[in-house]
């Protein structure tokens, strides 16, 4: 067989090779994204995602969608514009969640014995699916950024509420009121994380009474729009094939 001849001899064989190639690429993509997104998210989301007593209605709601829309936007840019595959956001979030769960279960629980109900990760899946769906239906980066980015911010809090709400039930403890999440943070000693490091319920958003979570979610959605644009372009730039020699 010369170099100019095809490696496959029939259409069936070509399809088989193509499918094998699909799985190889998907597997590699999944774990590369998992690694990159996980590191990025640990560095930027960090404690807000690690501990339930950081998951408040102001900063957790605001910060996490903003730092979490990054890789979904970039992976979408590569998969959509090159392959018309609308699962970039979902595959990124699947990777992140798998990485986070491995980390929380093996490290936080397995090595240091923090209970899993104190250290479980945040869930981005509703926003990711909506982001993919909007990109697919509109085929527009701008619409996906504006509508999808906003939805990504807005869906985060209600998407996590079924898991978080039980931990926001109040408890009276030795004469003080706190939530069960606060109590977890107090009971399960973190020597290197004193209470004052906790960034919760800070800010000047005091004119909306107790309903600050929706306002925070809207603000998060607006910033997520900008971050989506930025990271979508990153995806396009880094998804270039300019350095790959054509056959």
């Amino acid at each position, binding site marked *: 067989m010369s170099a100019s001849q095809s490696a496959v001899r029939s259409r069936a064989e070509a399809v088989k090779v193509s499918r094998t190639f699909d799985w190889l690429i998907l597997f590699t993509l999944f774990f590369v994204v998992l690694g990159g997104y996980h590191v990025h998210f640990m560095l930027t989301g960090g404690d807000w995602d690690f501990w339930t007593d950081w998951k*408040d209605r102001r900063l957790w709601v605001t910060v996490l969608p903003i730092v979490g829309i990054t890789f979904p936007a970039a992976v979408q840019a590569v998969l959509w514009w090159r392959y018309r595959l609308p699962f970039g956001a979902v595959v990124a979030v699947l990777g992140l969640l798998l990485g986070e769960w491995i980390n929380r279960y093996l490290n936080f629980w397995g090595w240091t014995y923090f209970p899993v*109900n104190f250290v479980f990760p945040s869930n981005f*899946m*509703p926003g990711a*699916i*909506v982001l993919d769906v909007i990109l697919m239906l509109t085929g527009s980066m701008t619409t996906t950024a504006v509508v999808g980015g906003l939805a990504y911010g807005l869906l985060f809090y209600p998407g996590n509420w079924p898991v978080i709400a039980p931990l926001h039930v109040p408890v009276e403890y030795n004469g*003080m009121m706190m939530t069960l999440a606060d109590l*977890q943070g107090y009971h399960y000693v*973190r020597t290197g994380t004193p209470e004052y490091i906790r960034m919760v319920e800070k800010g000047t958003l005091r004119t909306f009474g107790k309903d600050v979570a929706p306002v925070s979610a809207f603000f998060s959605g607006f910033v997520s729009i900008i971050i989506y644009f930025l990271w979508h372009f990153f995806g396009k730039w880094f998804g270039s094939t300019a350095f790959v020699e054509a056959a």
Partner: protein
Amino acid sequence: MKILKDKVAKLSFVALLITITAAMFYAPTASAHGEKSQAAFMRMRTIHWFDLNWSKEEVVVNDTMTISGKFFVFGGWPETVDKPDISFLNIGIPGPVFIRAGSWIGGQLVPRSVQLELGETYEFKVLLKARRPGDWHVHTMMNVKGGGPIIGPGKWVTVTGSMSSFTNPITTLTGQTIDLETYNLGNTYFWHAAWYGIGLLWLAYWCRKPLFVPRLIAVEAGKGDALITGTDKKVALGFGVGVIAIVAMSMASTNESFPITTPLQAGLLRGIKSIDMPVPTVAVKIEDATYRVPGRAMQMTMTITNNGDSAIRLGEFNTAGVRFMDAAVAQDETGYPDDLLAEEGLTVSDNSPIAPGQSRTIQVTASDAAWEVYRLADLIYDPDSRFAGLLFFYDQSGNRQMVTIDAPLIPSFI
């Protein structure tokens, strides 16, 4: 000759491998908290812990123990460390091997950060409930914002039993009693698994079709739009609407199940009550102080004036949690950690009772291996070469007076 060289090389390589493998079997437990690495001046001139008591040395899982005592917030707080305006009474243990069932300063529960005043003495107590079996070094600890963790004395405590039997029952304000150790765990797993499953379904829908090579060819040929079929759009719409519906319904049902929820609680606790310490009737003036490096001893010349109405003797010098004692005057009866206790580490040139109204200049030597073991000797390398500590004087009735000292320190290398 070459064969011999090859053999030697091979054997050397095998020996190296065996050595590395053998090294893996030596994995000592890292059980310290870096207390010895903290700058000496941080430990000597910030928080002085004293009258400490660990209620138990052995405790069974689910049983409790307390660490109680007092701490003095040193008035000569170093400039290089932020003031303790925002501080948190912590506990130095290797993760949640105990849970902190309660902590109090001046009788007030302190689950949050507090403001401490320089020059004040506070009483504290930490209630711990054993969770994980093992031998644990349990330290007192004060975190100071801008200053870092200021770790106090530690004592080994053994926890026996089984962690699987640990429970943490809590009754909420809605009247429900839960075990915080496992509460909400099934719900968390359920929702995460459900959403992960939905994500996988979305991925699986697209993975049924050829993915990369044929689609790349089609897109590059300008036929990208043809890759999305009408069915794809209907399925996508179904996913989109379905996701929003699930989110809305799950939120509504959650609100129905948990109608009463409150925000996380945060904020600084001010007005922590300090102890009204009696004004000491003993005045101490440090004439000079040197640290003799070869002898691992601090020598101080001090003038003591007794302004009280009973004769007093110097019984103890306490700095950075190390207690140098004159056994003829005072002895520890609290089971203080051995490595921090120099029972006969305090030598006084003339420790006969100082009568009321009398003034005496004496030489005091505090010597013990603890200077080296606890790296307090590193004080000579600190940016502000001063030392500080507490002196305890006793009268014949056993009454105690505490006097703070703070003075420059001159190292002696010969």
